């Protein structure tokens, strides 16, 4: 069958393609950041190596990975305070991690704002929106980072920390609040086109969108933060799940299991065609 793209599909692609390219680059960068301290003479290397060795007993993490993880630099699990080393590593990896996980989810919003703002202001509006989005997400990320450190400290062992994070994530996934966040995450509010109100709306939209995004994702995001050795793998799994989830339409909030049915069906039709 002749499969010429529809005009709508063409418009969709114009924005989606560059975002997907950026996402791929972010994954490459995330990978690089993970490998970096282990292979280079990074100034954090020595200190981190030491702490990781202390960890090796209960958490045989790859030296390079645990660096950006909360608590990894603190030496003993009982000490929950954040070392500058692990915080720095977190902040170094964060922009890439955020981009790698969230950029594709932002496509509908970017498309909406791009289409509905004046051509002369498109760049400015999109920049402000993304800046607000990143700012709110980063604040949320720091809270998550602190929370992960606390969980790690409180749990005593890594396995317990991961187990409790997974349990909390599962509970959140079932809750009506999660659905509410997902629903609000689909909202594409109108934005002013001219002057200050346009800037204000772009910032507000970026910020609120990040809040609902945080609400949808925080519990699942916690899980990879607690993994040492399999951090990157856990991050990939969580990312795929979050992407899959975004294919489902809004639904009335309720306590119920929420599986990404649409994405699963798409994958299964691709796997066994006909």
């Amino acid at each position, binding site marked *: *069958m*002749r*499969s*010429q*793209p*529809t*005009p*709508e*599909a*063409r*418009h969709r692609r114009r924005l989606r393609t560059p975002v997907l390219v950026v996402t791929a680059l972010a994954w490459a960068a995330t990978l690089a950041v993970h490998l970096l301290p282990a292979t280079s003479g990074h100034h954090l290397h020595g200190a981190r190596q030491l702490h990781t060795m202390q960890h090796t007993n209960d958490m045989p993490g790859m030296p390079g990975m645990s660096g950006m993880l909360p608590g990894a630099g603190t030496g003993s699990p009982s000490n929950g305070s954040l070392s500058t080393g692990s915080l720095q590593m977190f902040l170094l990896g964060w922009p890439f991690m955020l981009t790698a996980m969230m950029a594709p989810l932002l496509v509908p919003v970017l*498309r909406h704002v791009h*289409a*509905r*703002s*004046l*051509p*002369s202001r498109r760049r400015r509006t999109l920049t402000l929106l993304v800046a607000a989005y990143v700012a709110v997400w980063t604040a949320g990320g720091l809270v998550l980072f602190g929370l992960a450190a606390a969980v790690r400290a409180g749990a005593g062992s890594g396995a317990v920390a991961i187990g409790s994070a997974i349990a909390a994530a599962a509970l959140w996934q079932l809750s009506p609040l999660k*659905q*509410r966040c997902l*629903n*609000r995450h*689909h*909202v*594409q*509010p*109108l934005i*002013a*086109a*001219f002057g200050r109100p346009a800037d204000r709306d772009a910032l507000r939209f970026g910020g609120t969108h990040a809040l609902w995004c945080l609400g949808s994702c925080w519990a699942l995001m916690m899980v990879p933060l607690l993994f040492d050795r399999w951090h990157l793998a856990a991050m990939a799994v969580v990312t795929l799940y979050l992407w899959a989830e975004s*294919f489902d*339409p*809004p*639904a*009335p*909030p309720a306590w119920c299991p929420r599986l990404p*049915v*649409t*994405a*699963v*069906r*798409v*994958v*299964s*039709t691709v796997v066994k065609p006909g």
Partner: protein
Amino acid sequence: MTYTRPNVWELGGEWAEPILWYARGVAAMRERPLSEPTSWRFYAGIHGFDRQLWRQLGYLGASDRLPSDALRRRFWAQCQHGSWNFLPWHRGYLLAFEQVVRAEIVRLGGPADWALPYWDYFKPGQNALPPAFARPDWPDGGTNPLFVPARYGPAGDGKVFVPLNNVNLRAMNERAFTGVSNGASPGFGGVDTGFSHSGRIPGALESQPHNMVHVLVGGDNGVLPGVMTVPDTAGLDPVFWLHHANIDRLWESWNRATPSHRNPTGARWAAGPAGRGQRAFAMPKPDGSTWTFTPGEVTDLVTLGYTYTDLPSAIAAAPPAEPRERLARPEIAARLEGARPVPEDTHVELVGTSPGPVPIQGSDIRSHVRLDAGMRRKVTARLAPALRAVGSPAAAPEQVFLNLENIRGQSDRAAFDVYVGVPDDQDPAAFPDRLAGSIAPFGLRKASAPDQEHAGQGLTFVLEITQIVDQLHLDSSFDVDTLPVRIVPIGPVAPEADVSVGRISIFRSGR
């Protein structure tokens, strides 16, 4: 065999055989319990279901048992709106319904070639509700199965007809079946979407006349909406099916108007939402089995073995519902001749917007669109030459569109005329050539609910205003900072319904 759907007004009498048998078929379906997939109310539930409204309108009693969860998940709340699936889904819905009615008719000893009549409200003298639907009694005695008390009409007084000044056939001039969601035309049939039970931007035919006829025929009585007024109840009215037979006929007529009026062909269209992991289009058959279909399977009416008694290929050449002066616009004919798919290099850009939301309160709403100076100059620079160059190949013609974005509210009866460029101190009725269009946000209440399919963003309507803007430009009335937009409700909109347009905007589309 080929089934021929006849014109309901030309059957040769109020209770001619086809309509009498339709009534008998409907009566038989009505006797079945709600939980049975071939019952009258089950079929209406396939379009949509709202427990509270069904109760209030008397279609759901205390003793009624709802269909099983599995049946409801497979069949109910399926209708496609604000999507290119609108036409194919409703075509399949009609076909399946007709089969069920026909099975009942045959069981009762009626004609095996029975086909659903259509109501062509545009034909002179045929805009009134067909009489068989309008009276509480019927030849077989008892209550007329075609009669619905909650059918209030345009004035809400029970006089049901389609006011011809509120409907039009401009959709028939759309060049492409599918369009875009970013401010330019959504196309004749709608935008390429997935499963879309309450979509955001209706295609041209869905918006006019489809939506408008629903809202004006159903109306409201001041307390409750009419059955036809709300998507979740519309299928309960026997006239719904005649209305949709007409919409389906207009689709086929559009296809026949010119060879370039082609339906989509890609895999996305053909496989439909099911091809993207979403719900399949499924209808219960008379024998209890399920018919699952895709848009690709119902694209060709001839293959399906159906036709209509009247399929004017040049329906657009004489749109009967518009004032004379607008009918005679030569551009329409010119564009029909030069009709071709949308060129690939088309760019859609915002030209201006209203300063904020526009509440629909009162009987005459004045609002303004502030124009960006640079974009305004771009439009005027390209407009005149582009119109003249209609016959030239490949280049995207300059077009201008008015968008009423994110209309929201708690009423399903809202409908309004929208004028562009009428000075604030003038009566818009004196400017019929500045009427951008008439819109009826069918399904507004549900589209405004935050936890429904489209997250409560409401509905967006797109009206082409290229001709108006060109005229204004020639009169030097477009070279202004703010362009007046007037909204005149068709029938009163209750203030407590809180109906508002989120933003009024103007877009250009072209190179």
